[in-house]
């Protein structure tokens, strides 16, 4: 039995590894098989959706293990109980996730069509910076020195890896950094929300979330590409749709994507978004060997890969900047317990109010010396000031606050 913490790290790590595989396949496919990002993305998503539905149906088959009848998918995600149609709030968020994902998907394919994995993988992680900036705006908070350093490191690194043939390409930068990562940030936020809400006491499972967001993604993508479909593209699609090579290629490709997404979403349900992103980002390192592997296997296709050693040194430096920035950002954290006493006159429930404060990992109403035990997880100790002074002190009824910073912790999850 592997511990839950270890499982969490493995999920995030493999999500990253599988992601780098499908990026390499896309880079190959867009150069060797279908050199048109619109046609490629349409075929890819429709075939992907079909195979995803197939996977989901297979995973819905119930099997009996130790006298309990459960669908196979239960062993991938214990919240899974078969294919189900999202309703209410879940439906709204899934629709939103599908819409923004279609935006990031089409820009992703456009970008892949003129770059290589060593460039794409670092750029795909840029959304971490946006997530952090959203936090600052929402918390009305001043960033700490560590946060500024990390943002600079990741941004600088991202610019360095886009460097090709000795110059910056403004088109790549705008498409990947602004549109693709902007949409991906929104997608991550929607997915985190979907993990948190539950309908009738049942949480959303990652398998259904992946399928339904892919379903709406494909729908919105098709609508967006419609105006660009001229005669040559339609002919191309008709010719390629029933080709077995194309089908096998996309099934394998979307298989990696499916595994990567399911693991990513599951990791999100287990831990903090920033830590998941940090671990997934380790796959950036894989971009460089994978690009060379591609160039070795198919030299005529990856002819744009430069062998200029100076350029590669700059790219490697950029990659290191991105990884270090994301790691430092996610792994610097401080935990603290805060004990609260409330006045006897105030009996209103303040549990929800405390839980809504950002950085609060858990809040427990206790019977004993104190009334509430709050566990905080923040980036620097200085941030406890914001949480205690600006948030907790304002809650009516609290008469005593005792903060106990954790200097070392040992836990089993």
């Amino acid at each position, binding site marked *: 039995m592997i511990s839950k913490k270890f499982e969490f790290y493995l999920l995030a790590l493999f999500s990253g590894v599988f992601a780098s595989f499908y990026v390499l396949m896309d880079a190959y496919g867009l150069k060797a098989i279908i050199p048109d990002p619109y046609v490629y993305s349409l075929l890819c998503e429709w075939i992907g959706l079909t195979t995803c539905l197939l996977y989901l149906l297979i995973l819905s088959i119930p099997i009996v293990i130790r006298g309990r009848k459960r669908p196979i998918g239960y062993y991938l995600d214990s919240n899974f109980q078969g294919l189900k149609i999202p309703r209410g709030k879940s439906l709204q968020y899934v629709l939103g996730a599908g819409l923004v994902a279609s935006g990031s998907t089409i820009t992703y394919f456009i970008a892949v069509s003129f770059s290589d994995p060593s460039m794409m993988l670092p750029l795909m992680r840029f959304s971490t910076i946006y997530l952090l900036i959203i936090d600052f705006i929402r918390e009305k908070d001043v960033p700490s020195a560590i946060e500024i350093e990390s943002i600079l490191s990741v941004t600088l690194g991202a610019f360095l890896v886009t460097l090709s043939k000795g110059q910056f390409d403004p088109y790549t930068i705008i498409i990947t950094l602004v549109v693709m990562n902007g949409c991906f940030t929104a997608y991550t936020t929607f997915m985190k929300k979907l993990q948190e809400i539950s309908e009738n006491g049942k949480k959303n499972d990652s398998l259904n979330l992946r399928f339904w967001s892919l379903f709406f993604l494909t729908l919105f993508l098709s609508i967006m590409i419609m105006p660009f479909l001229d005669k040559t593209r339609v002919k191309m699609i008709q010719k390629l749709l029933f080709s077995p090579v194309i089908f096998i290629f996309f099934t394998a490709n979307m298989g990696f994507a499916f595994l990567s997404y399911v693991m990513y979403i599951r990791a999100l349900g*287990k831990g903090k978004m920033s830590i998941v992103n940090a671990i997934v980002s380790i796959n950036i390192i894989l971009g460089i060997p994978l690009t060379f592997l591609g160039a070795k296997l198919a030299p005529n296709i990856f002819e744009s890969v430069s062998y200029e050693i100076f350029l590669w040194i700059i790219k490697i430096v950029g990659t290191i900047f991105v990884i270090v920035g994301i790691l430092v950002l996610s792994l610097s954290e401080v935990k603290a*317990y805060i004990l609260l006493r409330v006045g006897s006159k105030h009996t209103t429930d303040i549990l929800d109010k405390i839980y809504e404060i950002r950085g609060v990992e*858990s809040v*427990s109403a206790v019977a*004993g010396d104190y009334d509430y035990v709050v566990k905080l997880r923040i980036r620097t100790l200085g941030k406890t000031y914001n949480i205690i002074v600006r948030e907790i002190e304002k809650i009516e009824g609290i008469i005593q606050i005792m903060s106990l*910073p*954790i200097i070392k*912790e040992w836990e*089993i999850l």
Partner: protein
Amino acid sequence: MDKIDAYIFIEVEIGKSEHVLNELRKLDIVKSVAFVTGIFDVIVRVSVNDLEELYEATVNYIHKIDGVKRTRTNIIEKELKSEG
């Protein structure tokens, strides 16, 4: 049957911290041990099946650990928690 969770605040004698940690880790019901600065030294989180088990653990085990000066148990009545 739902489990009962509790926080146990412990005051530890100077120089015995490492020993207390090692002894606490042997206990099945212990979910986390945190060294803190402030009025207590250690905050332990436990998860038990019933109050009898909690009593057994505190009175017959934790109180007997060399170095534990005083404990205060806070049983959790209600909790909001993000996973992970």
